[in-house]
């Protein structure tokens, strides 16, 4: 199937954190401004003719039934076509995928993909922890977010000898990277010893194995490759993408040492882009918990199944490693404002491919970067996007 080539011509985000002082609308406006400001040759916002919004959890700020209309109004584009995407933790990356398809179809010229998420307007107890009460006894009552991934850590340790130190090395690396990212929620170094001494949240995951609850927003401007040079001389192109599903509940998983949705989604993205894991210069992957990054780098084909722990401990995924993973600090340090997360990760890929990432810049040799999210209760959905700077 043929499709029009799509380019990223602008991307930006706001400083992540507990943004008690900002409304959802203010965060959206901030991210849009940052994306507009990043366009090398300038882009009049009236050129945007469609908006795809990613917001995953309106219930966290009292906007359960929110549609797609809040954002155009907030960013001064009321009247523009707008659709909201909700697809669990990959909401942002799926909004990007859908935005790319909208441009590829030729229906819209300039598309804004924007992710906005309020995670801290409600107390922790009323917010994410409240999901413990969501189900009934056959729907995993007591299941807070770490319960969705900790069983994989237990089993990964059992089958492959993965250790708490290996898990901790992921948090240490990502916090280090976060120190180099001015947009990261956390900007302080941590040590393996600190991770191992932090309180147990959901065994075997400790506090520093877990990402924080972060408010944030990120925005990307897409247009056709044909028009990209009107806006920049350094466009980044959409090379491929894939989305895949799996059974939604943990007891329906066929295995607890991998996430099949990731493997399926990345296989589709690699096929579409005509590349493989070895062609990538860096990747932004879903590290909501340390174990998740270990599963990801295995399921994405960066390392052999079972070797994710040692690879992390030995620095293969560090900024100067064989395959740098999460140079932005990842969800663990940069934060995980769910709908914004994927778009913030893609923004990092855009900076890295344009070699504008400052102190955390990785070596760009082949010109490909991969972005990945997985989530949805028992990791029932994954989205992978691959960007390239190669024309």
């Amino acid at each position: 199937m043929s499709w029009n080539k799509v380019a990223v011509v602008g991307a930006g985000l706001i400083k992540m954190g507990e943004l008690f002082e900002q409304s959802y609308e203010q965060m959206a406006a901030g991210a849009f401004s940052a994306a507009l400001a990043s366009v090398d040759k300038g882009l009049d916002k009236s050129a945007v003719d469609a908006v795809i919004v990613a917001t995953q959890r309106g219930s966290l700020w009292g906007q359960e039934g929110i549609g797609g209309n809040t954002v155009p109004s907030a960013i001064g584009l009321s009247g523009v076509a707008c659709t909201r995407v909700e697809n669990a933790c990959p909401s942002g990356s799926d909004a990007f995928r859908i935005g790319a398809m909208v441009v590829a179809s030729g229906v819209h010229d300039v598309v804004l993909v924007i992710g906005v998420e309020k995670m801290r307007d409600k107390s922790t107890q009323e917010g994410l922890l409240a999901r413990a009460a969501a189900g009934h006894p056959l729907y995993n009552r007591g299941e807070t977010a770490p319960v969705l991934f900790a069983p994989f850590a237990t089993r990964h340790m059992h089958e492959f000898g993965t250790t708490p130190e290996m898990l901790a090395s992921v948090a240490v690396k990502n916090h280090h990277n976060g120190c180099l990212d001015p947009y990261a929620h956390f900007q302080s170094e941590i040590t393996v010893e600190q991770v191992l001494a932090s309180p147990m949240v959901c065994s075997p995951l400790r506090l520093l194995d877990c990402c924080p609850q972060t408010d944030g927003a990120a925005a990307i401007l897409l247009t056709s490759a044909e028009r990209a040079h009107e806006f920049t001389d350094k466009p980044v192109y959409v090379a491929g993408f894939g989305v895949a599903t799996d059974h939604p509940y943990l007891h329906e998983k066929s295995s607890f040492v991998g996430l099949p949705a990731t493997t399926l989604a990345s296989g589709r993205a690699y096929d579409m882009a005509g590349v493989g894991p070895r062609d990538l210069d860096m990747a932004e992957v879903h590290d909501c918990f340390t174990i998740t990054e270990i599963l990801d780098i295995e399921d994405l084909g960066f390392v052999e199944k079972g070797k994710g722990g040692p690879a992390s401990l030995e620095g293969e995924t560090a900024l100067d490693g064989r395959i740098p993973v999460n140079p932005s600090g990842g969800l663990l340090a940069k934060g995980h404002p769910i709908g914004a997360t994927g778009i913030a990760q893609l923004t990092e890929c855009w900076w890295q491919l344009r070699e504008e990432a400052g102190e955390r810049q990785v070596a760009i040799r082949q010109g490909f970067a991969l972005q990945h999210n997985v989530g949805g209760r028992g990791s029932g959905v994954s989205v992978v996007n691959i960007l390239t700077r190669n024309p």
Partner: protein
Amino acid sequence: MSPDEKNADAMHTDAINADATSGTAVKPVGILGVGAAAPSLRLAAKDVGAAWGSSAGRGTVAVCDADEDTLTLAWRAANAALDAAGVSPAEVSGLWWGTARPPFAEGPSHAFLATTLGLDRSVGGGLASGSPHAGMEALLAAWDALAAGHARYALVVTSDALVPGLGTAGESTTGAGAAAVVLGAIAEGSAGPSANGSSPPARLVGRATLAMPAVDRYRADGDRVTGDVYDARLFREQVFVPLLTDTGRGVAEGAATPLRAWAIADPDGKLASAVAKRLGAPLASAPVFGALGDTGSAAALLGLVHACADNATNATNTANAANTTDATGSASSGGLIGAIGYGGGRATAVVVDAARAVPGAVTVDMLGTGRQVAYAEALRARGQLEPMADPIEMGLPPGGAAFVRGNPEMLGLFGARCRDCGTISTPPSIHPTCTGCGGDHLEVVPLARRGRVETFVVNQTMPPPFQAPLPLVVIDLEDGARLMVQGSPADAADLAVGDVVTLSLRRYALERGIPVYGYKAFRVAGTGAGSGVPKGTTVGSGQDRSAREGGS
């Protein structure tokens, strides 16, 4: 058995002697098996006294953990009795449940218990409640139904987990427990209702009920706890001792031989022995009170179950039986045990003729010693000490459609088995197609109750009403189904991949006042991966679920 056969069976009028109270030679109703259960916590009675600055209290009382109640205790005792009797749930024609405080003051208590036990939807019987006399009322009602030919097998469950008022005299004596018996009608001229055709191990041979309208322990409409603002001396001298003594004499005088022991409900650890003394036979139920406290509706049958299993009592029995045989020439008499229940101004005594060892009979020691807890923890478990913070509400209201759809599969623990590939998807209501092959040739099946830990976590961070540590366990059941349920906090420290666990009914939540029941995993001691039991099949090495289940 098909519904038609079942109806025919129920309508079959067994020739029985309905005049059981007269103690005549023909005994119409047999006891086929018994079961008992105690909750998991124990509180030293003296700790209760100490909390109120008194030296009152002796022994221990049994206390339900936060996820136990009268229904979960009843479930355990009933399953044990059915197993002991060799009677399948489908064969039970009536469930009679006696509990002073059913889980729903008004509501589907009986339907919930019957569903969790896997009884047929058409099962008869009823719920007796309102006072601790409810246990005996359930027993007599079942007996009557069997005697009248309306039932072939009856399941009688007596259970209680009363919540005593703080600072009341009953606080240091109120315990919890359950006892169940499976009764069978004996057809005239037949060997009996046992599965193997032999005569039943025990028979119900006498009964008497007396009333004395006096207020002692009570719970008014709207009260959350049981009060007992009565004069203890007055109660002893004018109510309890005379009423139970008269009731006991009523059955003892009609019995063919002297009773060898009594099991008597006991509000305070002293009154039952006063009654037994007057009745002139040993009190066999004293150890039950000592270990569990006043078990309310369950007290009389728990005492009876203990007496049937107790070596000391049986030694006496053997001696008595020998004497009796000599005196009467009858070889049939194994010795008689009396049981007296009390509550709400009524007492009922029954006499059981235990010819042989009663299947399932256990002494109170065999019910486990439980976990000793401090007064404050006991209060918290009983819901009498609550955090100020509002508990997080369950996302799904327990009266809502998801529960109406889900209750049968949740209480009965069902899965949807694929006729094509064998995969079992749980629960059926969310699986119109098979998780293994995507096909839709599914049949609803009850799930195995035992399996092996595939993986687990221990959640330490949850809002009220949850309490850490809370294990959540993914289990591969023996039938090949995979399930994720809560585990026992008591197992949190030791749980390991490969452990064998069993599923037991627990109360998951008391949500907006409505109890929500489901199954939890409990580690079977000494069955870990390192204990010689073959390690569970591992996954992640290319094996998929259908491959695992292919061997089942």
